[in-house]
């Protein structure tokens, strides 16, 4: 049977995470369809149709961005699929468990490795243990951590057919009344190849600009600790860790970050970690590939200059 991947998109652009999940979903054994819902679904569908390994793209344009409208739509389509797969991010985390309960199934979420169409690995305890799960259920409902799967190789675009699906009339539910968007043209944090992260040691939103300057110089995304977000130095969608975004960049530069286990949970997949901290004993300094003991307020400006900024 076939696999349905739920596309994630924002401002008319398919997320890079969706492309990775579509590529990873090829390991699930069936032909892969992609479902695009919400505003701009038609435009996004064309982007999904160009991905490799897509049998067809199905669209439900204009559906409201809530689990209460998405889930009845998925319930109607579920019979056609052996696997329904979402990116492990806000939309998938919101909808997949609700769908699972409606279908009386146990979902397997935050998957970091597909061993077989019914066997998966997922982290527990903030990534301090990894469980191997087997599901003998008739249908698998999954979320995949995009950071754990490679980006698809660039290839000439494919051309899958796009077909609309009828969305069921959903009962009156939650209405979206306002959005507060973090502006910026930086790479997507969850899939960025370079991330510069800042901790509460920055001390103010103004000083956090240092982290952003270094990031912009390197073409990097910006991350932050929960403490930095709670203090108002960085927006919530920059939080990296157990309860924020999980990243696996080639290079992570951590500035004034202690390395609490909840933060480490989000960076375990980073290839190279550089840490800058006044405290040589900070947990992050112990696991960093390269560590520099020093005051970030002297080190970072000099580093920016040395890198030609």
């Amino acid at each position, binding site marked *: 049977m076939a696999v349905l991947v739920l596309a994630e998109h924002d401002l008319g652009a398919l997320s890079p995470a969706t492309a990775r999940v579509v590529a990873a979903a090829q390991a699930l054994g069936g032909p892969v369809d992609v479902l695009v819902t919400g505003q701009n679904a038609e435009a996004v569908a064309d982007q999904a149709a160009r991905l490799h390994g897509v049998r067809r793209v199905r669209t439900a344009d204009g559906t409201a961005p809530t689990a209460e409208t998405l889930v009845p739509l998925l319930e109607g389509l579920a019979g056609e699929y052996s696997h329904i797969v979402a990116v492990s991010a806000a*939309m998938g985390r*919101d909808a997949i468990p*609700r769908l699972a309960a409606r279908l009386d*199934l146990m979902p397997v979420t935050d998957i970091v490795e597909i061993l077989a169409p019914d066997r998966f690995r997922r982290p527990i305890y903030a990534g*301090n243990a990894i469980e191997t799960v087997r599901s003998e259920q008739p249908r698998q409902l999954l979320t995949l951590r995009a950071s754990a799967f490679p980006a698809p190789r660039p290839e000439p675009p494919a051309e899958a057919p796009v077909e609309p699906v009828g969305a069921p009339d959903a009962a009156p539910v939650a209405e979206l009344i306002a959005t507060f968007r973090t502006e910026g043209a930086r790479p997507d944090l969850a899939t960025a190849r370079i991330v510069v992260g800042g901790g509460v040691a920055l001390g103010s939103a103004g000083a956090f600009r240092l982290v952003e300057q270094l990031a912009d110089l*390197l073409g990097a995304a910006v991350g932050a600790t929960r403490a930095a977000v709670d203090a108002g130095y960085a927006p*919530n969608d920059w939080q990296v860790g157990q309860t924020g975004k999980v990243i696996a960049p080639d290079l992570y530069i951590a500035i004034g970050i202690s390395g609490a286990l909840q933060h480490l949970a989000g960076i375990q997949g980073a290839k190279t970690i550089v840490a800058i901290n006044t405290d040589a004993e900070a947990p992050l300094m112990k696991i960093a590939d390269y560590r520099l003991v020093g005051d970030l307020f002297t080190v970072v400006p000099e580093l920016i200059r*040395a890198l030609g900024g």
Partner: protein
Amino acid sequence: MDKILVAVKRVVDHNVRIRVKPDGSGVETDNVRLSMNPFDKHAVEAAVQLAEAGAAREIVAVSIGPRGATDVILTALAMGAHRGLLVEAEEKLETLAVAKLLAAVAAEEKPELILLGKQAVDDDAGHVGQMLAGLLDWPQASFASAIKPAGDRLEVMREVDFGRAEYRLPLPAVVTADLRLNVPRNAALPMVMKARQKPLTIRPAAEFGIDLAPRLRIEIVAAPPARAGGRAVADIAELATIIAEAQAAAEIG
């Protein structure tokens, strides 16, 4: 609102550095500190604040787990919940079974609002609130960072991938708490003493007549690969060279 139900789970304390059992059967939970799941503290705090503001009359704290999980119900009662319910289950339950038990409790208690944490930090599932909303066919707002009553509705700020999004929900509804929802109070000693006087019911899970059998098989639990430590860098010039090289490598792929 007449009643708010808050679901609280007892988990390995978030400060404990856990150990995987050598036989791969799970994580060592004997003789480790257990406490209320951090997110659930924010859920309880939100309920108590709504009651203090006159927006809710009664808060019922419910936990599903072994007898010892009454500890976290007592914590909720000390924070200001009025009544506790332990659905006693010795075995570890999957999130779907937990959601079904909570749905059964909700059918009896008929709350207008159910508050949960967004995820339990042991299994890091993040399922139960959304499952419960699905079983009850109620609207849901997951990952809430602000809750405000608005007439017969609730306005909830949710933390999402691009920032934040505000929703208005009809009641009854399910809301799951994120860490920025509020600052949970530490119950003062007199409140802790008073909590012991509050009603706390214990009912066996079997009483609800729900199939609690697991659907998934955990084949093995293993420790993640350890990161080898690195080395100290002499100065900023060397660090700049390392970063420039790593950047070049990242661009090539």
